[in-house]
């Protein structure tokens, strides 16, 4: 099967090269047969990558320990669930997985638009094939996952060997989230290739104005949704697995995933300027280019280990390949822009400073400042070493200080922006739209202050959250009220109806509401508390309102690890509340450790209990308990963000007039002068 996989990958490379070179030929000559054959070569490339990926999974499932990658990342006792995840647990596999996910997108695009947008698609196909060629080069010639295991023999020659068992999977990866977090994040990274390919293709083809934006809107939103889910699942993994009580450590790999998310978010907003007003065309094209470049940079930072990180699981010599690829993309983008920049001329002028247009500009400004600040902070240790010879640590305190104010400004804009009118917003409408939410925000802040929210940023954040939530709720309420007046349905049904009529707008509001919930959760971090204690059976520790009693401890051998478990009773007001079972796992094959945090989560706070292990000094079990307020809101917010994006992806339901016969009781006056045979009804289009 390893030969099969290698062969499929080589063939995929050949097909991709054909799709690329033939595609250029098709653009130059316009020959229909060439256009068709290059498209089919693109589809074949994807199918071959699918086969290679399934080939590698087969090697994992069949415990083929003659393959070097399988030996390094799996063992016989590894649960089936994690044999899937083992695919992306190392360098070679994750690069193949990148190719795989990219192929899912490329395949879908080639199939969806096979008979549409004839002038544009050859360009898009060439760009997509170009990206695929890069990753297939890595898959085939630099980091192949299909290398056979070989050891040097007595005469110095390499001999093929097969091992009886593998080294096993890193314990940190043996958690359910690890099976879904990387695919989500990678689906985000790879997904931005599609808007990039369309933007670059449109620029090269001088394809009309907003059309590429319309075409890529959904693809961008899908990529953005996966990226958001990937980031939040990663945060949840860090929270539930690493056992340090936090969810975001501003680790270089985390930062790398945030960068394209920030520019992608900026792009999702600024495209509206182009769609509605024909403005910011150059900016939009460069935002997509930047987002894609950051996706490649993110993959590079994750995979190359250029910036040290606790979870850069691999470090190797692929760095130069990535830097070269980044340079080539930048060069191509720049050349395309210089050649065809006249086609990106904007149309409109600005009527008033207080308008939706300005709010988008400031939204983009803040997102980009956040992005550049995170990027330069992440790379600063490298710069510092270059210039001064001293490596400086740029850790969480720095990023928090820099990004909290930016985040709060963005949150403020989230509330203000959507309520400003296009072109010009009158003072009257400002008062009408913001008066009540502002008042509610201030009252909310006063209540929070009275409840003990005395930390400046947290208090500001909470006030803004209440303000933004009120503006959104008010928008739904006003719209729903109009529909209710006409249809007579309940307010909730009317709000649903309203959402379905303009899914993009109201889906967007739901996403904003999700972000508000995430920010509420983040505001709680200022009040985190923790305590650590060496415990004996029956001894207790106190944290906040909870008393933890160590009732018992046990040890149970599992297939792949031995778990040492503390059985802790949680008491509150002298009443038993629940039992928690924090674990320390020792993995047999890798001789590594993992923690299994026990969390009692409520909307108010998380009681987060870690069994740290036996104290090296006294051999007594050490329990580390944290009280983290409001964390649950972050995960809830993430779910709402995803829900909102899904809503925004739905097609609009339009209200249409339907002429139909209706029963009219005798003697009743005719409503609105309509003839008795006509009633107003709505139907889905």
């Amino acid at each position: 099967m390893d030969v099969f996989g290698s062969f499929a990958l080589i063939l995929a490379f050949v097909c991709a090269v054909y799709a690329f070179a033939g595609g250029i030929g098709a653009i130059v000559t316009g020959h229909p047969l060439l256009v068709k054959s290059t498209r089919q070569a693109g589809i074949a490339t994807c199918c071959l990558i699918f086969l290679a990926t399934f080939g590698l999974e087969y090697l994992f499932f069949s415990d083929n320990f003659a393959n070097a990658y399988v030996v390094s990342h799996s063992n016989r006792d590894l649960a089936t669930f994690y044999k899937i995840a083992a695919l992306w647990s190392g360098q070679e596999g994750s690069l193949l997985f990148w190719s795989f996910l990219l192929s899912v997108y490329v395949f879908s695009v080639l199939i969806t638009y096979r008979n549409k947008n004839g002038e544009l698609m050859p360009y898009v196909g060439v760009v997509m094939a170009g990206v695929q060629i890069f990753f297939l080069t890595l898959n085939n010639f630099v980091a192949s996952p299909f290398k056979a295991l070989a050891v040097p023999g007595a005469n110095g020659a390499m001999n093929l060997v097969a091992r009886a068992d593998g080294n096993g999977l890193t314990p940190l990866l043996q958690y359910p989230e690890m099976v879904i977090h990387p695919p989500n994040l990678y689906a985000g990274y790879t997904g931005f290739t599609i808007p990039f390919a369309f933007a670059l293709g449109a620029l090269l083809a001088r394809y009309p104005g907003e059309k590429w934006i319309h075409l890529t809107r959904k693809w961008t939103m899908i990529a953005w949704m996966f990226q958001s889910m990937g980031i939040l699942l990663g945060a949840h993994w860090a929270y539930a697995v690493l056992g340090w009580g936090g969810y975001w450590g501003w680790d270089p790999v985390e930062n790398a995933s945030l960068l394209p998310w920030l520019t992608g978010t900026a792009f999702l907003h600024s495209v509206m300027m182009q769609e509605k007003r024909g403005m910011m065309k150059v900016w939009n094209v460069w935002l997509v280019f930047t987002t894609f470049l950051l996706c490649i940079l993110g993959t590079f930072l994750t995979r190359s280990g250029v910036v040290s990180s606790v979870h850069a699981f691999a470090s190797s010599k692929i760095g130069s390949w990535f830097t070269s690829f980044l340079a080539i993309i930048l060069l191509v983008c720049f050349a395309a822009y210089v050649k065809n920049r006249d086609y990106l001329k904007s149309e409109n002028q600005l009527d008033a400073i207080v308008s939706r247009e300005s709010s988008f500009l400031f939204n983009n400004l803040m997102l980009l400042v956040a992005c550049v600040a995170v990027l330069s902070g992440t790379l600063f240790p490298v710069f510092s070493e270059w210039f001064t010879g001293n490596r400086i640590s740029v850790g969480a305190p720095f990023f928090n200080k820099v990004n909290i104010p930016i985040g709060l400004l963005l949150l403020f804009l989230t509330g203000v922006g959507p309520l400003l009118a296009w072109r010009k917003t009158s003072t009257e409408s400002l008062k009408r739209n913001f008066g009540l939410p502002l008042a509610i925000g201030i009252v909310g802040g006063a209540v929070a202050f009275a409840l003990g929210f005395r930390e400046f940023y947290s208090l500001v954040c909470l006030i803004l959250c209440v303000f933004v939530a009120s503006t959104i709720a008010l928008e739904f309420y006003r719209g729903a009220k109009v529909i209710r007046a006409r249809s007579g349905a309940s307010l909730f049904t009317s709000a649903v109806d309203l959402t379905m009529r303009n899914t993009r707008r109201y889906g967007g509001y739901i996403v904003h509401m999700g972000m508000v919930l995430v920010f509420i959760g983040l505001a709680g971090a200022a009040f985190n508390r923790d305590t650590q204690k060496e415990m004996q059976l029956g001894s207790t520790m106190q944290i906040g309102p909870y008393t933890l009693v160590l009732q018992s401890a046990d040890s149970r051998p599992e297939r792949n690890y031995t778990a040492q478990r503390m059985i802790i009773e949680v008491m509150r007001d002298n009443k038993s509340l629940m039992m928690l079972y924090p674990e320390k796992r020792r993995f047999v094959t890798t001789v590594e450790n993992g923690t299994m945090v026990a969390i009692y989560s409520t909307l108010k706070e998380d009681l987060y209990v870690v069994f740290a292990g036996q104290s090296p000094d006294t051999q007594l079990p050490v329990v580390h308990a944290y009280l983290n307020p409001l964390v649950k809101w972050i995960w809830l917010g993430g779910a709402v963000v995803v829900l909102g994006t899904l809503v925004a992806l739905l097609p609009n339901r339009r209200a249409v007039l339907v002429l139909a016969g209706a029963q009219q009781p005798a003697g009743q006056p005719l409503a609105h002068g309509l003839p008795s045979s006509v009633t107003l009804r709505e139907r889905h289009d």
Partner: protein
Amino acid sequence: MTKAHSIAAITMLAMAPLLIAPLGVQQLSDRAKQVGTKIKCMCRGCDMPASTCSHPGGAFSGMCDTAKAMLKEVDQQIAKGETDDQILQAFVKAYGTQVYTEPPKSGFSLVAWVLPSVYLFVGAGVVVFVISRWRKRPAPQVTPAGGTPGISAELLERARARASRETQD
């Protein structure tokens, strides 16, 4: 022996008795814990602040001996009446600038702190410039065309399309 050397030596010595008489985290002063958030645990295995060093994935996910010794050293410096800054400087002399959890606000590292504000101001400048340029751009002139009074059908259609685009969210 320089002060830097003496700190490193004291840290090493301080670690030895830990094996016999364990130092609980609780015994440290709040100020030592506070200073400990500004210095990194230098065991090279966790990359975390000394106060919150917890070695995820280690056999013992708690404060390691290096972090404990560093914090104890902080406590001793506090007892001698040193200021937070003096304590930090002593650690920098012993371990280099890498001991900081965040870049110091001096020397080349100051650049890291200044940059975000530079981005903000430059970006805001660009936004203001763009807005003022857009404001100055003249509104498109609509002139009567053809024999019909008013506007041509094509212009009317374009205006309709634009209006519908702009009124729809």
